[in-house]
């Protein structure tokens, strides 16, 4: 087995390893320090160490940001989408159950335990190693994208500014905080397409592994031309996920009606970790997906009258409400018109006033509107211009 010195070459020394691996459907091989892809020299050399070590042994880590569910907003930056090989160091998964205990009288042996739920968190530590300068830069790009995952989302919300007559005169953008980012994460059989938010990101440059030195001129595989830039040969990352499960977890449930011992998810797969080619256990096997009816959710409240045995259909209720509105409009119109007509009543006969009110009522019903003042003014103007006999 190759020792560490052979895996990470020092200085300008040519690496002595030889390997043949497949990376992203392209065939790479490295021989005497030169990387060849399908018979051609490939520059810059990226994903070599991870291609040789990472992909050969481990599945890729995929982190894909889910777009915001809010509509009508503009994202502040492109969605984060990462898919790369790395060398995992440690994988830790913590299941934390929420129990509360009620202590009762002295001498009682056990308290009463109440269960509230179980949370799941994952911490993954890994190394991004670099054989070349280009790979080191690529690793740092991955790191900065990963670091962005723990910062909140900001959005631009368009807001129309109205002019004096109420029309949109200009659009102004407000920046608002959009909360945390949600991701889909996949890492082989250990994290399988889970929805998560990222609760931790820690970056450490492993200085013991060395850095690529500066040398005037263009970048080569082992030196870079940017003075004052440090490009580590290895960085160590620790990232934490809190899993948000999309389906009910437990035994039984809506998808397992009459099967209280079976796992609630009802999919032909193991949970939480994949087991590949072997069949799932009997209690995990899918059954007919007879989903129990959801409990009825009351979304509208009715008056006592509407909830009576003579319950009306929605259409009938709407019709009754419309009639009630019309009656109210006519009544209000008459009241207002009566008050307004008082001013001109001195010069009007009772017949004129009655005619005006009749006209107001009829127009109010036609208009079916609350803009009663206009109707009244028009009606009274008609009375003045064409007084009844």
């Amino acid at each position, binding site marked *: 087995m190759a020792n560490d010195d052979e895996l990470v070459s020092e200085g300008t020394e040519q690496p002595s390893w030889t390997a043949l691996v497949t990376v992203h459907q392209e065939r790479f091989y490295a021989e005497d320090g030169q990387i060849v892809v399908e018979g051609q020299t490939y520059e810059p050399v990226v994903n070599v160490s991870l291609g040789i070590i990472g*992909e*050969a*042994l*481990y*599945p890729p880590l995929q982190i894909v940001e889910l777009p915001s569910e809010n509509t009508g907003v503009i994202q502040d930056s492109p969605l984060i989408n990462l898919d790369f090989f790395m*060398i*995992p*160091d*440690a*994988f*830790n*998964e*913590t*299941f*934390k*159950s929420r*129990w509360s*205990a009620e*202590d009762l009288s*002295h*001498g*009682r*042996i*056990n308290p009463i*335990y*109440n*269960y509230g*739920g*179980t949370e799941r968190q994952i911490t993954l530590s890994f190394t991004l190693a670099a054989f070349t300068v280009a790979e080191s830069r690529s690793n740092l790009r991955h790191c900065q994208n990963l670091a962005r995952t723990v910062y909140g989302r900001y959005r631009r919300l368009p807001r129309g500014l109205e002019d004096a007559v109420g029309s949109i005169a200009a659009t102004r953008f407000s920046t608002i905080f959009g909360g945390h980012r949600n991701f889909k994460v996949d890492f*082989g*059989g*250990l994290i399988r397409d889970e929805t998560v938010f990222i609760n931790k990101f820690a970056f450490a440059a492993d200085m013991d592994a060395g850095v690529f030195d500066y040398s005037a001129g263009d970048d080569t595989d082992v030196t870079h031309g940017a003075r004052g830039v440090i490009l580590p040969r290895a960085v160590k990352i620790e990232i934490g996920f809190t899993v948000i499960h999309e389906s*009910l*977890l*437990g*035994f*039984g*449930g*809506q998808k397992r*009606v*009459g*099967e*209280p*011992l*079976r*796992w609630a998810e009802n999919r032909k797969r*193991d*949970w*939480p*970790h*994949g*087991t*590949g*080619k*072997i069949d799932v*256990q*009997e*209690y995990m096997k899918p059954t007919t997906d007879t989903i*129990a009816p959801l*409990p009825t959710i009351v979304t509208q409240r009715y008056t006592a009258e509407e909830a009576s045995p003579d319950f009306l259909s929605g259409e009938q209720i709407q019709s009754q409400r419309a009639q009630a509105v019309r009656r109210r409009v006519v009544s209000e119109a008459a009241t207002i018109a009566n008050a307004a007509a008082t001013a001109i009543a001195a010069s009007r006969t009772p017949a004129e006033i009655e005619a005006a009110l009749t006209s107001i009522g009829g127009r109010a019903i036609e208009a079916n509107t609350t803009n009663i003042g206009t109707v009244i003014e028009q009606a009274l103007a008609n009375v003045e211009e064409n007084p009844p006999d």
Partner: protein
Amino acid sequence: MTAPANMRVYSGQHKAISVAGWADNQGYVVRFVHQPTKHAVEFPALISDFTDTHSPSFGQEHGANMHDPVITLMKTTRTISFTLTVLNASLEEARYNRQCVNLLLQMLYPSVDDAGNFIGKPFINIHMMNLLEGAISGEGVTCVIEGLDYGIKFDDGILNANEGVVALNRSGKEIYPQSLEISISAKAIIGSNDDANQISPLPTNYPSYGG
């Protein structure tokens, strides 16, 4: 309706080279039973950091002209913690053990009714030879597991059976460590004594370490 799962220690074709064979020979087995469903799973008892703490809590009153307080025993709680190491000697065993570990992790969840309400609290009965044994021989101690940590150290090695890990990655993205650790911290629920002739509600042999 399906029967409760009863996943015993691995006994496949690689048992002879596995720690499972040794555990079976010695009777070193730790068994977990999910109380709401009676699903059960066993592992070879590669136990480290086992602690079983019985903690009394007292009320104290200090009187005038008294050096020492008047003590009132409030309650005694029992907390258990241990680390279980699961070793995989072959690909077949790794897959089987992963299903066993999956069941153990699932035991931290309750049983639920058709409307999605939690109805069966996830109490887990743990039996670990004579170290964790209930009032009845062969039965364990029912516990409330508050935290379970599942950890893989990749430096310990990953499985590279005849199929090769590269092949695994292409087919099913499977990844199996040679060893993984499961750390458990739990509070014990003390069984009650059903014998009407006994005054103490505690079982007569409680607590017992097989001495």
